[in-house]
């Protein structure tokens, strides 16, 4: 037995799992994060996978990664750089060398480190002996071989046997992080419920990995990340896409309007369609349409028939849905469109994150066509904003576009599960059967929204459509003055939404030297950078926008209290341009990144420091 290793207590640790697309790194990553959640660590995860399903084995293009940031302290991002890297082959090592902290621990599968794989990864020398890993704590484990040996007794074919090797990795990490093996074993029992053979085999490999680490001398130091100080209640780990789906299910139950999702598979939004497809037990209907257009049109039809109509997509799909959104604007029906942004234009970077759809979302339709726009800012609050998007769509009888992005969609974090009873009520503006005063375009004065009458209701037969309608009566009208009245009413209806949304919050002091402005999915990096600088005594605050159109009523107030303002976004400055047109007279510095990657905290802090130093 090795001597007892030194245990270092850490506030936070970033672990990156990397291997071939087929190596099961996403699963190992999720297992690690789920068990971290179980022992009470705060956490944030981010998968990083190629757009090819199985790119050539052993190549850089085929490297699939999963990053987990766990903490005893509050964790807001998956972390800039890793403390621990698991590299299943040379390509995984090479692709991640630039993303490691100094002195990081690197665990490699020695069996894959041979000249053939070096060549595939583009190494000219053996990285294990050329000195490039000097200063790192490298653990060379024959993972493939040891796994093969461990599962021999189960008589698996080579493929099935190979698939269990991620549990060897898990075992190594359980030891490295001083975790109770029983938690990992329970995870496996839960995962392979009905297959005792797989449970036994995976548990055996998990233990082998653990005991191997105990035996070898390489790990002289292990880590302990104590549970985070969490408020009381129930928690789970949740991704942005799952949270969006659940937000709609919750809104449907609360409003009593059945959920109808019309959608077409597209990365990185497909999990929303998949999740709702599996929720027939709650009466939800997911209609996988023949294309993006049919997806939104079916949702608009369902909404006309009295359902909560939703469609989910990414940028290229949103482009195809433009005309359908226009129809929902004209017919003034509730509709939620989810845009999970990815790198563009065109097919662009399908699996990478970006925020470059803002102008498309705000303006990408013909005619004067205002829609409400919300943007979620963390994986977990995707639930809240999906719920609020549905609430606004129904109560204000309007299409709402909910913006997410690839980073939120696939990333996960710990979520404090809400009580359904605590969610705000959703008032459905439904007309009573045979109401003699019903006119299709009669509006309620508080919201300027029309009322909802469904086919099947007695005494309310009426017609809607894309042609301009006469005010109040809803007759088809080509009258020039009526058109202007209706255009203005639709805009005024949108503006009214500002009366029903919360004021813009500022994190930090409400006035000061520098205001950092962000929107949507960049929250984690921005808030971490701002809070770290505040701890260093800097006069800096953050305004992260979730309500994009209309903007919160106090936006002008927030802006005027700071000497400098910097708008940070993952595009070339779309929100900055939007603020310049809506709030003239302010000067906005821009910080833009368009690499398909989220912001790094270090780069943000460097930029903010530079501005503050030059004030």
């Amino acid at each position, binding site marked *: 037995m090795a001597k007892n290793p030194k245990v270092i207590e850490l506030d936070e640790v970033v672990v990156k799992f990397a291997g071939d697309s087929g190596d099961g790194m996403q699963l190992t990553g999720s297992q690690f994060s789920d068990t971290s*959640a*179980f022992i*009470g660590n705060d956490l944030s995860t981010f998968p990083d996978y190629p757009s090819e399903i199985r790119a050539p084995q052993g190549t850089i293009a085929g490297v699939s990664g999963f990053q987990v940031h766990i903490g005893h302290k509050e964790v807001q991002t998956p972390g800039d750089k890793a403390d621990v890297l698991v590299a299943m082959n040379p390509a995984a090592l090479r692709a991640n060398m630039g993303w490691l902290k100094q002195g990081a621990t690197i665990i490699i599968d020695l069996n894959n480190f041979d000249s053939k794989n070096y060549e595939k990864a583009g190494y000219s020398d053996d990285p294990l002996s050329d000195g490039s890993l000097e200063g790192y704590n490298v653990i060379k484990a024959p993972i493939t071989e040891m796994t093969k040996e461990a599962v021999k007794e189960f008589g698996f074919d080579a493929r099935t046997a190979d698939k269990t090797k991620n549990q060897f990795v898990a075992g190594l990490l359980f030891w490295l992080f001083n975790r109770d093996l029983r*938690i990992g074993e329970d995870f496996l029992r839960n995962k392979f419920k009905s297959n005792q053979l797989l449970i036994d085999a995976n548990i055996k490999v998990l233990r082998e990995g653990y005991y191997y680490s105990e035996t070898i001398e390489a790990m002289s130091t292990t880590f302990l990340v104590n*549970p985070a*100080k*969490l*408020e*009381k209640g*129930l*928690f*789970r*780990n949740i991704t942005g896409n799952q949270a969006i789906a659940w937000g709609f*299910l*919750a809104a449907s*139950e609360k409003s009593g309007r*059945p959920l109808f999702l019309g959608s077409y598979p597209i990365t990185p939004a497909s999990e929303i369609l998949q999740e709702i497809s599996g929720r*027939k*037990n*709650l*009466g939800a*209907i997911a*209609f996988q*349409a*023949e294309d993006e*257009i*049919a997806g939104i*049109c*079916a*949702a*608009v*039809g*369902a909404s*006309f*028939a*009295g359902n909560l*109509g939703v469609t989910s997509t990414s940028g290229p799909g949103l482009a195809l849905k433009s005309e*359908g959104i226009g129809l929902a604007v004209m017919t003034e029906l509730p509709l939620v469109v989810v845009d999970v942004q990815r790198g563009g234009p065109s097919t662009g970077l399908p699996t990478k994150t970006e925020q470059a759809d803002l102008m498309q979302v705000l303006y990408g339709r013909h005619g004067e066509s205002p829609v409400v726009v919300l943007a979620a800012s963390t994986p977990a609050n995707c639930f809240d904003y999906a719920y609020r998007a549905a609430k606004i769509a129904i109560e204000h009888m309007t299409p709402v576009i909910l913006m997410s992005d690839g980073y939120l969609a696939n990333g996960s974090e710990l979520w404090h599960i*809400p*009580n*359904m009873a605590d969610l705000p009520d959703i008032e459905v503006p439904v007309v009573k059967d*045979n*109401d*003699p005063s*019903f006119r*299709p375009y009669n509006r309620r004065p508080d919201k300027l929204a029309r009322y909802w009458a469904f*086919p*099947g*209701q*007695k*005494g*309310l*037969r*009426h*017609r*809607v*459509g*894309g*042609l301009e309608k006469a005010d109040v009566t*809803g007759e088809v009208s080509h009258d020039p003055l009526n058109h202007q009245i209706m255009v203005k009413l639709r805009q005024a209806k949108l503006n009214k939404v500002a009366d029903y949304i919360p004021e813009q919050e500022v994190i930090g002091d409400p006035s000061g030297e520098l205001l950092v402005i962000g929107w949507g999915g960049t929250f984690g990096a921005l808030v971490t950078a701002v809070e770290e600088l505040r701890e260093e005594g800097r006069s800096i605050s953050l305004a992260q926008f979730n309500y994009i159109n209309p903007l919160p009523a106090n936006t002008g107030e927030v802006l005027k209290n700071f000497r400098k303002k910097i708008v940070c976004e993952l595009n070339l400055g779309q929100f900055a341009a939007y603020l310049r047109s809506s709030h003239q007279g302010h000067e906005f510095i821009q910080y833009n990144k368009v690499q398909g990657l989220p912001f790094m905290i270090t780069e943000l802090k460097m930029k903010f420091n530079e501005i503050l130093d030059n004030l």
Partner: protein
Amino acid sequence: MAENEINTVEGLTRQDFKLSDPVKWCAGCGGHAVLSTVQAVLPEIGVEKEKIVFVSGIGCSSRFPYYINTYGFHSLHGRGAAIASGIKLANPELNVWLVTGDGDLMAIGGNHFIHLLRRNIDLNILLFNNKIYGLTKGQYSPTTPQGSITKTSPEGTVENPFNPGELVLGAQGTFFARVVDTEPRMMKEVLIHAAQHTGTSVVEVLQNCVIFNNKVHAEITGKEVKDENQIHLRHGEPMIFGKNSDRGLIMKDLRLQVVRIGENGVTEKDLLVHNVHDPEGTIHYMLTRMSLPEYPIAMGVIRDCESTAYENLLYEQVRQAKGKSKIKTVEDLLHSGNVFEVKDEEPSDI
């Protein structure tokens, strides 16, 4: 555009489906006859008037919902099939009709059309086929015969036209019928069959466009020629036609052939007997394809076979999922799977 009276199915008349607003189709347009026939049919299909919905796309035919007193949705060019699908799936109790034209359904809406047929959602499609773009004033459509001179084919089209029935059969459609706008009796009979069919029904109406394609169907519908150039198919009856009912169809060498009763020893017994319910669609396909001058044009219900509608299968899955699952509410869902509880402010170490 709302109305406020109460009515049940009993006592429904065509008046219940009329609106006071003017119908804005050209005088002489085939649409008027279809509208009037539909208004006569609706009281006879056993559906409460509030449960009937008319959906359309864009084009002359697609103004239909504005002219009939039901729930209505005039939607986007080509997208009527998708909108109607959403309505029907949201509330399967509704009786949903889609009114569309040759361009709306088979050019811009072609994708939605074939997938609707494949799914077999219980909708009734009225396809106004005038073989021209009317509302945009005279460009060729996907059904315009090759060689036709139109505004966008000044030297004649070089495109092969679609035959709607071929598309229906090719996309596994379960109901196809063809009628002409000038024969309300046949149309009424066919529309009732279409309404009763479970699954997607397609009724092609050979419709005249008095302005841009006048008399396009004249060689089929003209008084002097219609008996010789049309065959009205009825289930269980021999395939017989002609002014003197002396011509018919037989199958020879795997092809349909027109014969004259009394010639070459042919009797009525030799003629094919129409079976609309035959799930094997080969003869229906052949009938659909018949064209002048070799054959008469097949009219009436060509195919009407038993099928299960998409929404019936879908809601059966919903019923079963609700029955089997332990998750009955969203609260149950939120608490399912890997959930852990923090009991104290400072959770104890594990």
